[in-house]
């Protein structure tokens, strides 16, 4: 197994690879069903349409308008 993430334990990587193996055995239709979820995200889900001239504008909007716990702010 490749050591691509030095901060990960071999056990964590092993568990991930087991998950990847299991997922690979499922048909794509089923993988999509398991993967896409829907939960309400405050602010983000409150407008039917938004457009930003530049990605930087969108990133700045995410940082100022969205609750930080959504995780859209930059590190």
């Amino acid at each position, binding site marked *: 197994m*490749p050591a*691509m*993430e030095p*901060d*990960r334990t071999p056990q964590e*990587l092993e568990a*991930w*690879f087991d*998950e*990847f193996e*299991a*997922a*690979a055995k499922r048909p*794509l*239709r089923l*993988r*999509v*069903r*398991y*993967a*896409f*979820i*829907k*939960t309400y*995200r405050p602010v*983000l*889900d409150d*407008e*039917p*349409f*938004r*457009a*930003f*001239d*530049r*990605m930087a*504008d*969108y*990133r700045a909007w*995410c940082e100022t308008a969205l609750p*930080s716990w*959504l*995780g*859209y*702010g*930059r*590190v």
Partner: protein
Amino acid sequence: MAAFEYRQAEEIRDAFARRGVRYLFIGKSGAILLGFPDTTQDADLFVERGPGNGVALVAAIRELGFDLTDAQAAEIVRGKDFVQLKNGPFDLDLVFAPDGIEQFSDAWARRIEVEGFPVCHPDDIIASKAATNRVKDRESLPRLRAFRDYWARQRNS
């Protein structure tokens, strides 16, 4: 609104093919099509910027049931960097200039086809997420990189 379904991914694929829209699945939705087991809410599409592609894109997403005003359609045709659609049967993000990818043509040349879905190469998905540098992406990147290595090994075996 319910979660995005495989049937809707097929509808995107088929409507975009009919209209000749050049696009790629990107982000976690792209990784999921490649086999990455994780969860997400939105379908993210990297769309080639250009008037012809923009007009075809608007026609395709209207066909899918998105309720666009003429002003909104014009913004999409103009190719804003990022458009978020929640006025249709599912949530859709249109990205014309993703962070970390120089040009659409580069990503297109490296694309992976999965059951007819054009998907960004995992390296491009990772590059985009790494460049974005959001909290949620930083958390998912180690696992996504591990998946990329797994995926590459399976492809080469």
